[in-house]
């Protein structure tokens, strides 16, 4: 583990990405307590203010402190993105691994269904699920998880096909293990490691997808300060106070870039040949 971190820190992408992601996680974990003001307190005397001494990043249309809102919205954005990616990864890994293990006609059937699902763009697919389930943060999380699963299952299957050829899988079959045990205990742990890289990069997409859903009014609901929702709410006041859009936009971009860099770094660090 420490060796992996050292290898990660050796590449510039890994080092920068790691620092950004660590910073973002800290903010997300402690943000609500660090907020200097109540994120939902109105200040009618100080609406649409720019960055200044009393409000670090300015205020919105109700005079709420943008800095406090950003901090309290961090967990809703970052952790939801990570969790929905995790859901998508586990789901996809299981489907892909099972497909590779079963092989033959079952593999063919599963992968063709996955192909069909993948033909729908993930945003559209997530929209579909959210409209079916109703608009809420939890449903957005489920929707993104499911929307990510087909892509992950393709990646997982290709890894699992090579794992399938290893003799430890044959040994398990030979001693009479059931399919469930072989997929979950023998194959999955060996499949997950390589697709961690893919998952890390996808967190960035999840952040953006989540923000998009909230922007469209299908994710988090007011008065939540989820970053995508903040961008969405600022749209009407774009010209009166652009800071309302700039800060959450920048934060989303930072998280996306951080996870992307970390993913690139991990790919190099996990590859023993570099």
């Amino acid at each position, binding site marked *: 583990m420490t060796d992996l971190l050292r290898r990660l820190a050796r590449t510039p992408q890994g080092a920068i990405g790691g620092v950004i992601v660590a910073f973002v996680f800290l903010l997300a974990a402690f943000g609500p307590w660090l907020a200097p003001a109540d994120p939902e307190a109105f200040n009618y005397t100080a609406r649409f203010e720019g960055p200044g001494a009393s409000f670090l990043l300015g205020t919105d249309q109700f005079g709420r402190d943008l800095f406090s809102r950003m901090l309290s919205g961090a967990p809703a954005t970052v952790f939801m993105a990570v969790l929905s990616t995790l859901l998508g990864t586990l789901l996809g890994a299981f489907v892909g691994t099972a497909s590779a293990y079963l092989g*033959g006609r079952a593999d063919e059937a599963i992968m063709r269904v996955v192909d069909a699902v993948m033909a729908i763009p993930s945003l559209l697919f997530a929209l579909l699920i959210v409209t079916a389930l109703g608009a809420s943060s939890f449903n957005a999380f489920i929707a993104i998880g499911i929307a990510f699963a087909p892509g992950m299952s393709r990646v997982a299957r290709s890894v699992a096909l090579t794992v399938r050829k*290893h*003799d*430890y899988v*044959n*040994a*398990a*079959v*030979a*001693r*009479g*293990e059931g399919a469930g045990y072989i997929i979950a*205990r*023998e194959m999955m*742990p*060996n499949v997950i*490691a390589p697709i961690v890289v893919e998952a890390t990069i996808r967190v960035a997409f999840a952040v953006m997808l989540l923000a998009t859903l909230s922007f469209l009014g299908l994710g988090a609901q007011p008065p939540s300060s989820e970053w995508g929702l903040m961008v969405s709410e600022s749209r009407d006041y774009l010209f009166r106070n652009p800071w309302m859009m700039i800060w959450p936009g920048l934060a989303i971009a930072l998280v996306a870039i951080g996870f992307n860099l970390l993913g690139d770094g991990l790919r190099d660090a996990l590859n023993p040949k570099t």
Partner: protein
Amino acid sequence: MSTPADTDVPVLAVEGYTLDYLTPTGGLRALEDIDLTIGRGEVLGLVGESGSGKSTLAFAVMRDLARNARERAGAIRLSGADLRTLPGNEIARLRGRRIGMVFQDPGTALNPTITLGTQVAETLVRHHGLDWRDAWKRGTGMLERVGLKTPAAMMARYPHEVSGGEKQRVAIATAFACQPECILFDEPTTALDIITARAILDLFRELQAETGVASLYISHDLALVSEIAHRVAVIHRGRIVEEEPANAIFRTPREDYTRQLIASVPRPDRPLTPPLAPETDAAPALLDLSDISVRYGRPSILKRLFGRSERVVGARDVSFALRPGEILGLVGESGSGKSTIARALVGLNPFEGEIRFAGRTLTGPRDMDQGYRRDVQIIFQHPDSSLNPRQRVEEILARSLILAGTRDRREIAATIGRLLEDVALPADYRRRFPHQLSGGEKQRVAIARAFASRPRLVICDEITSALDVSIQAQIVRLLLDLRERYGTAYLFITHDLNLVRQIAHRLVVMYRGDVVETAPVETVASAPAHVYTRELLGAVPTPVG
């Protein structure tokens, strides 16, 4: 073997050569104070186990070292001139023209996108300044010289269109094409089948005598090297521990390490297994295969439509029997169907025919219940691949016990302790992951796993061929000990005839999916009935002395 002509300046001389590899944890000494000389027409055999530094030495001579290699001292002289002081472009001109190399795996040594002819001819164009027409003609001649049947057609083929043995012949033709002074052979026959390897060795000897090239022959196989080299140097942990004339090394080894190495080389004339008791001779068979066939692949719909549904045959009508406690050797070259049969026996391949095991009859993998699976265990060739890298040793071993119906945690822990003891591994290894073990230790864990359910038959599928010869000897001794203790029967699959003759009671010889001979070991050795068996026996290098 003729003695080489002595000249004053040796063709290749390595003097006091020392090399380190830089690793994240510090320097690692790969070669220390190496002194070697090879004269014209001489073959020096370099023998060592994996990690001993023998390949590093070859790459040092070729001036193709890894980037983290640091040369600390010494010189490498080709006809007197130190290669270490030559600039890069001089080295490039020298490679192939004055010093050649033949690699272990001809499959990766040849470029798959270029025809064989181009690969042979381009060295001639580059180093001898021939134009392509002449180079092509000379190349065709070389291919004919190395014993390829249709050299002109061969020149136009791509590497994937020819067999492994043919590829190695092309690689040898390329190495000899420019008549270099010195050629390095890095395990040129290890990746080949026994009979093909013998043919390549004969070719090597012939070409070597004809051209008088100075050869460094690197191998892990002491028996083979002692047969073809004039002198043999033994390398151990980066040091040359002993250098002797080839015929003396087996008879009068000086160093402990050499003696240990020689003791590990399997000697068919010294059987290790006591003969079966006469009463087991009459006992009913433990395992009886009758007319087992395995076909691979499923015919495509299109082919079935046209009525052509022939499938690849892995094994055809294989029948043999195994008695309780017997060691049955199953030998043959790669692709002969040995592993196919092994996999069918543990339910990894569907099969046609009947398997009778301890009174029960099985006609397919579905008939194999937990009882059968407990009684018949398999150990695979590569321990790296057969142990799950993400499970600790205790988890790997516990699984077989849980499947066998043991639920009590304390009982499982105690049994794991006993199993580790059985295979002579320390008790604290239970907490380790496979990557924290050496190759031999991993194979011991695999053996412990196989013995966890107290099987009556263990199938050993080439279990020692990925291991060094000294480790192989330990593993074989362990297997024989376990058999002594538990009375287990073995189906011992191998291509190493010397080894199997040392331990098996009877041999089954397979050739292209068919069983061609089944007989007691002594009979096979003294009076082989089938042509293929005779050929196989003739191809095996026997230890000199």
